[in-house]
């Protein structure tokens, strides 16, 4: 079953809810090692649900998800996932260092090893000096960087990010986008990134998966051929704007493709 050279291999994936709503229909998607794949689409297209199915936090109705050739469940037990949510989900009874070391405690790392790794991770996200701060003493952007450090601390095979910068202001968001790219290169990780923002998706990704809603399907996949490493000037290149336009048009086409049936209130973005 295993596809060589694939971190994630999704085939024929469908997710329906008990309410009868089909959130995801016939999703096929392969992700290679080192890729940065964004999932973008309108609210209710099931992109967060898809991310959670890959992370084995939600079970699909049918279809298969393989992560490094294993089932998603096996991959979760093997600690293959680092997850970053829209809110940082830091434990406010723990200091910054102890938040970063939380997964390491779960993995049974020794105290000395944890300490060393926490130091490295805080250096990576440029939060050295904030070890003993409490999460609530940090700005939203800093909290999210702690959350990223925590997700990467145990070298997971796959980093799943669910609108990680959605709650931040535009300036912080752009700065963290740059940082994330730097971290991605340095940690050589594979990232699946859910976002609402077209420029963010284009700027960050190697591929943008455009989804349409009701039921959630993959409408188009836009390969982003912007040169690496990317920087502030990337956003000013004509190619960047072309790709933003391409994604925007794919979104619009996906939206036209299916008439939107009325959903019962509150089913949007549920899983």
């Amino acid at each position, binding site marked *: 079953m295993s596809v060589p050279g694939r971190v994630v291999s999704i085939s024929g994936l469908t997710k329906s809810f008990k309410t009868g709503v089909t959130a995801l229909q016939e999703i096929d998607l392969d992700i290679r090692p080192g890729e940065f794949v964004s999932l973008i689409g309108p609210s209710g297209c099931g992109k967060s649900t898809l991310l959670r199915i890959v992370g084995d936090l939600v079970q699909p109705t049918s279809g298969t998800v393989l992560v490094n050739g294993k089932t998603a469940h096996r991959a979760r037990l093997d600690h293959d996932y680092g997850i970053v*949510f829209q809110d940082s989900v830091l*434990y406010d*009874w723990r200091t910054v260092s102890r938040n970063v070391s939380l997964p390491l405690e*779960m993995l049974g790392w020794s105290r000395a090893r944890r300490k060393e790794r926490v130091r490295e991770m805080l250096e990576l996200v440029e939060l050295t000096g904030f070890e003993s*701060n409490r999460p609530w003493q940090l700005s939203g952007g800093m909290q999210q960087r702690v959350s990223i450090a925590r997700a990467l601390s145990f070298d997971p095979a796959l980093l799943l990010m669910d609108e990680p910068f959605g709650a931040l202001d535009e300036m912080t968001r752009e700065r963290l986008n740059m940082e994330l790219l730097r971290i991605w290169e340095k940690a050589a990780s594979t990232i699946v990134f859910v976002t609402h923002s077209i420029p963010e998706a284009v700027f960050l990704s190697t591929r943008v998966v455009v989804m349409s809603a009701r039921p959630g399907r993959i409408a188009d996949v836009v390969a982003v051929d912007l040169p690496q490493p990317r920087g502030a000037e990337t956003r000013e290149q004509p190619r960047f704007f072309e790709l933003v336009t391409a994604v925007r048009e794919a979104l619009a086409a996906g939206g036209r493709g299916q008439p939107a049936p009325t959903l019962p209130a509150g089913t949007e973005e549920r899983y």
Partner: protein
Amino acid sequence: MAMASVPALERHRGIRVGASRAGGALRRVGTFVAVLAALCGLWEGYKWLWEWAGWTWPFTVDDVTMPHLHDILAAFAEPTTTGGPVLIDSLLHAAWFTAKEALAGFVLGALIGFGLAVVLAHSRLLERGLLPYIVASQTVPILAIAPMVVVGLGSKGLEGWKAVAILAAYLTFFPVAINALRGLHSVDARALELMNSYAASRWKVLWRLRVPASLPFIFTALKISATASVIGAIIGETPASIQDGLGGAIVNFNQYYSLQPTFLWATNIVAAGLGISIFALVALTERVVLRRAPENVA
């Protein structure tokens, strides 16, 4: 910019907090004394006004119904029986005896309450099935079950104070169980997903996430239970005819109220003092533990 200045800002704020902490403590002591003085003034003022006007509603005020505060304080130094120990002496002994019951009951009740909450938090079925009975348990008057527990367990050879401690636990466990359950359920769905993504066992989720998250709820309950445990101990002693505690003293001085009203009032003050002490103990623990929660759950 903002990022770089945060630590400096925090340090700066830290210094100011440190400097104002001493002032804050002084202010709190000042407020406490002022309120206490106001309450004393209210007591004496009410007594004086009612006696001067001769009002009889809602009750006639005289030295029996409302003794002077200085008489109550003076009673502490009076001997309880001819040639016996002074009142403060016997009351402190009684208070120590009751404190033992209350504290033992408080700890036992808190542990039972917490244990119950943990079990119920992990089983929707048990929560639905057991919770109504836990609530119902608190509608049974403790006065009715006190003799049964004390006499029943006494016949099995359990010392009286231990039986009373069980009664105190009966009042204590309830707020802890209800609040801890709420706290254990209060965990953010994302935080649970995060723990799931680490393939954390239920046990780890409990101790690293649910319990720390529920500590503020638990401490609120412990504060309620702190005073309830003293009430439970005093009420437990009364029908069980245990003479050594504050309950026994209250029953005893009640009988002589018309002759020596100040003794009962003095006993009330000591009983209140005991409740406040245990409350303060919990509040102090809360300040230490909630600040250092991570070390305690690691």
